[in-house]
C-alpha cells in the first residue's frame, strides 16, 4: 500500500500548520471577546442563573470520543491500516453529527423551560450565543470530516494527505478544546 509507513515530518513547522494554529488563535480571541463581555455582565444586578440541561455534558463526552476516533484514524493512516482510517473517520463524523443533534435537543429542552435567546435573561442569551457559534464552527468541521470520510471510503487517501488530515485534526481537536472550555466556564458561572 502506498501509505504503509509513518508520515515523514518536516524539519520545521509546515506553513499550513502554522496557518491553522494562527486560525485557532483568532478563534480563541473571538471567544475571549465573548468571555469578557460575559464577565462584565455576570456581576450585574439583573444577572440570574439557570440550570444547564445535563445533555450538554453528555454531548461533551460524545465530542471527546469523536476526537479520539479521529486520532485513531490518523494513526490508521500513519501505520497503513486503511480499515482503521475508514472506521476512525466514520466514527468521528457520526459522533460529530450526534453532537450537533444533541445540541439541538439541548436547546429544545431550554426552550421548553421557557428559556429563550430573546429577552432579558442574560445568562441564557449568552449560553445560546456561545453554544450556537460553537455549533456553527462545528458544522464547518462536520463538512470537512464528511469530505475526508468520503475520500477514505473510496480509497482516495494516501500518505501525502497526512498534512491535510493533520490540519483537519487540529481544527477538530481545537473545537473540542473550545467546547470543554465553554461548558466548564458556563457551568462554573452557574455554580458560583
Amino acid at each position, binding site marked *: 500500500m502506498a501509505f504503509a509507513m509513518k508520515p515523514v515530518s518536516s524539519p520545521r513547522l509546515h506553513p499550513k500548520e*502554522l496557518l491553522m494554529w494562527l486560525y485557532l488563535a483568532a478563534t480563541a480571541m473571538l*471567544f475571549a471577546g465573548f468571555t*469578557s463581555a460575559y464577565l462584565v455582565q455576570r456581576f450585574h444586578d439583573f444577572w440570574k442563573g439557570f440550570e444547564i440541561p445535563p445533555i450538554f455534558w453528555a454531548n461533551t463526552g460524545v465530542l471527546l470520543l469523536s476526537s479520539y476516533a479521529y486520532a485513531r484514524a490518523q494513526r490508521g493512516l500513519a501505520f497503513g491500516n486503511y480499515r482503521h482510517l475508514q472506521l476512525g473517520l466514520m466514527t468521528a463524523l457520526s459522533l460529530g453529527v450526534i453532537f450537533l443533534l444533541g445540541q439541538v435537543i439541548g436547546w429544545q429542552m431550554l426552550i421548553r423551560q421557557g428559556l429563550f435567546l430573546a429577552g*432579558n435573561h442574560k445568562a441564557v442569551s449568552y449560553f445560546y*450565543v456561545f453554544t450556537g457559534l460553537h455549533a456553527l464552527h462545528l458544522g464547518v468541521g462536520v463538512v470537512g470530516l464528511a469530505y475526508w470520510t468520503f475520500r477514505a471510503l473510496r480509497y482516495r487517501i494516501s500518505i501525502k494527505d497526512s498534512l491535510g488530515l493533520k490540519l483537519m485534526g487540529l481544527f477538530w481537536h481545537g473545537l473540542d478544546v473550545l467546547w470543554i472550555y465553554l461548558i466548564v466556564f458556563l457551568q462554573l458561572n452557574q455554580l458560583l
Partner: protein
Amino acid sequence: MAVHDLTVSSSIAGHEVHSEHHHKETFWTKYIFSQDHKTIAKQFLLTGFISGFIGILLSGIFRLQLAFPDTSFTFLETILGKWAPEGRLDPNFYMALVTMHGTILVFWLLTGGLSGTFANLLIPLQLGARDMASPFINMLSFHFFFWGTVVLMASFFVESGPAAAGWTVYPPLSALPKAMPGSGLGMVLWIAALVLFVVGVLMGALNYITTVLNMRTQGMSLMRMPLAVWALFTVAVLGLLSFPPAVAAFILLLFDHSLGTSFYLSDIYIAGQALPQQGGNVLLYLHLFWFLGHPEVYIVLLPALGITSELISTHARKPIFGYRVMVYSILGIAFVSFIVWAHHMFVTGMNPLLGSIFTATTLLVAIPSAMKIFNYIFTLWKGNIHLNTPMLFAIGVVSFFISGGLTGFFLGVAPVDIPLHNTYFVVGHFHLVMGVSAVFAMFGGTYHWFPRLWGRMMNERLGYIHFWLTFIGANLVFFPMYYMGLGGVPRRYYAFTEFSFTSGWQDLNVFITIVALVTISVQLIFVYNFFHSMFWGKPAPRNPWKATTLEWSAPVKHLHGNWPGKLPVVHRWPYDYSKPGAPADYIPQYISDEDIARGVRWWEEDFEPLTVIDREEPSEGEKVTSPSTPVPVPAISPNQKLDMA
C-alpha cells in the same frame, strides 16, 4: 519501503511544483480568481482606491451641507432623490454620509486597501518567496473583502438608507431598528459587510504572518527584513488579536438589533414608553469596540510608517537611521496600542483612577512614535535627497504625523480630553495623524511601487502637482478644525447655524468646504495619472529607484513564482545606501562581498540580477519551505527505524 518513500517524495514534489507550470490562463483565472500575490495586490489597490474615492465624495456632499445649510442645490436631489428633498440634504442622510465616509475610509481604504495592497505585494517579493504560504486563502481573502464592499455599497440602495450611527456604531442608535432610518436594514448590512471584511482581513493576516515566519529566503534573517515588512507583519498580528473581539461585539449588536436580546440595552424610553430591554450595558460595547478600535489606528498607521521608511531611505540614498530602534518601536507601538483603548471613553464616567492609568499608557505611545519621527529626520539629515513624488509624499507623511500627533497629547490626557471630546478638535486630530498621513503613504507607495506593479512609470510632473495641491489642501482643511474644536464646535452636527457659539465659525466652515472640494477634485489628477500610466506610461527599467530590496531584482514582467530560476540569496541588510568605499551608492541585498570583489557591476543599466542570483546555491527557503519546490524527504525517517526495531 525506501521505494515507497521515493514515490511519496516525488508525489509531493509533483503536487507542489505544479504552480510552476504555465497554465493557459483565461480572463477569470488571471484577473478575478487569481492566486498570484501580485495580482491580488492590484485587486486590493483598485478596490481600496475606488471605495476610497466614493468615501471622499461622500465627504464632499456633507461638507457642502455644513458650509451652506440654508441653500438648496438642485443637483443633490437629482443624485440623492428622496434624501435631498428640494435640494436640501435630509438630516438622517447627513448622519448616514458621515457614518459611511468613516467606515469606508478607515476600514476599506486604509485597512483593506493599504495593508492588503502592500502586504500582498511586498511580503513575498521583499522576502524572496515565490508566493504567500497559502495562495488559495490569499485569493479568498480578497474575495471576502470584495463581497464586503459590495454589501456595504448595496446599503446605499435600501429604502431606509445606509447605517447612520457614526463609524463606531454605538448602541442604542445602532441597536434599535426604529431609532432612525439608518438603524434599520442599513445597519444589518453594515454589520454583515464588516464581518465579511474582517474574515477577509484575518485570512490575509494568517498568510502574512506565516509567510514572514516561514518562507523567507536564505540569508533573510528577521533583522534583515525591510521595515515595511516588519510593519506589515506586526499589523497582521495586531489584526489577528484585535479583530475577533470586535466581531464578538458586532455579533452581540446584531443579536440586540434583530433577535431581541438585550446585551447592550437597558432603561430606554421612547416617547415616554419604556422598552422591554433591561440589564444591558452600552459601555460593554464601547470596551469591546475600542479594544479593536484603538489597535485599528495602528493597523492603519504602521504600514504607512513602514512604507515611509522604505521611501525615505531609498530616496535620501541613506541607510535608515537606527534600524533596530525602528523595529523595536514598531513592536512597542503595537504592544502599547492594546492597553490604551479606554482613552476613547474618558467621558463615560469611568473611575478617575482608571482614567489616570489610561492617560499614562496613552502618553507612552509618544515614546516609540517620537523615536520613529526622529529617525526619519536623522535619515534625511545630510542625505542625498531626491525630491521625486514618492519622496515628497513620504515627507508629507512625517509632516502630518507631527502636526496630527502632537495634538494627541491633548486628547490623551483625561482632563483636557473631556472638554474636547466629540469636538472638531478630535476630527482634526485623527484626520491628520492617521487619515491623511496614511493616505499620503498609500499615494507615496503607489508612486514608488507602480513600476513594480504595472511595469511602467507614473508621470512625475502630474505627481508633483498632485502632491503640492493635496498637501496644501489637506492642511487647510484639517488645521482650522483644531480652532473650531477649541471653540467647542461639536462633530456630527447637521448645521451650525442654530447656536451663536457655533455660528461664529460659519465663515471658517465655508472656507474648509471650498478647500475640501478643490482638494477632492485634485485627486482626479491622480486618477488620470494612475490609469494613463498603467497603459501608456514610460516603460519602467527593472530597478528605477536604484533600490536595494529584493522586489527590484525580479523581472519587470510578472512571473508566477516571481523569479524565473533560483530564489535570490540575501547577504546584507536592506539599507546599504551610500556605503563608504562601495562602487555605487547602493548595494542590493543579493550582492555578496565576493560579488563586489569579483567586479559585478549591478548599477549599470543593462545589469541582469539573475546572472548573480542563479549562480547561488539554492536558498534555504527553496529547500525547505517554498511551495514551488519539493520538500526533501529522507529515505527512511527516524520514526520508521524505531518501528522496524
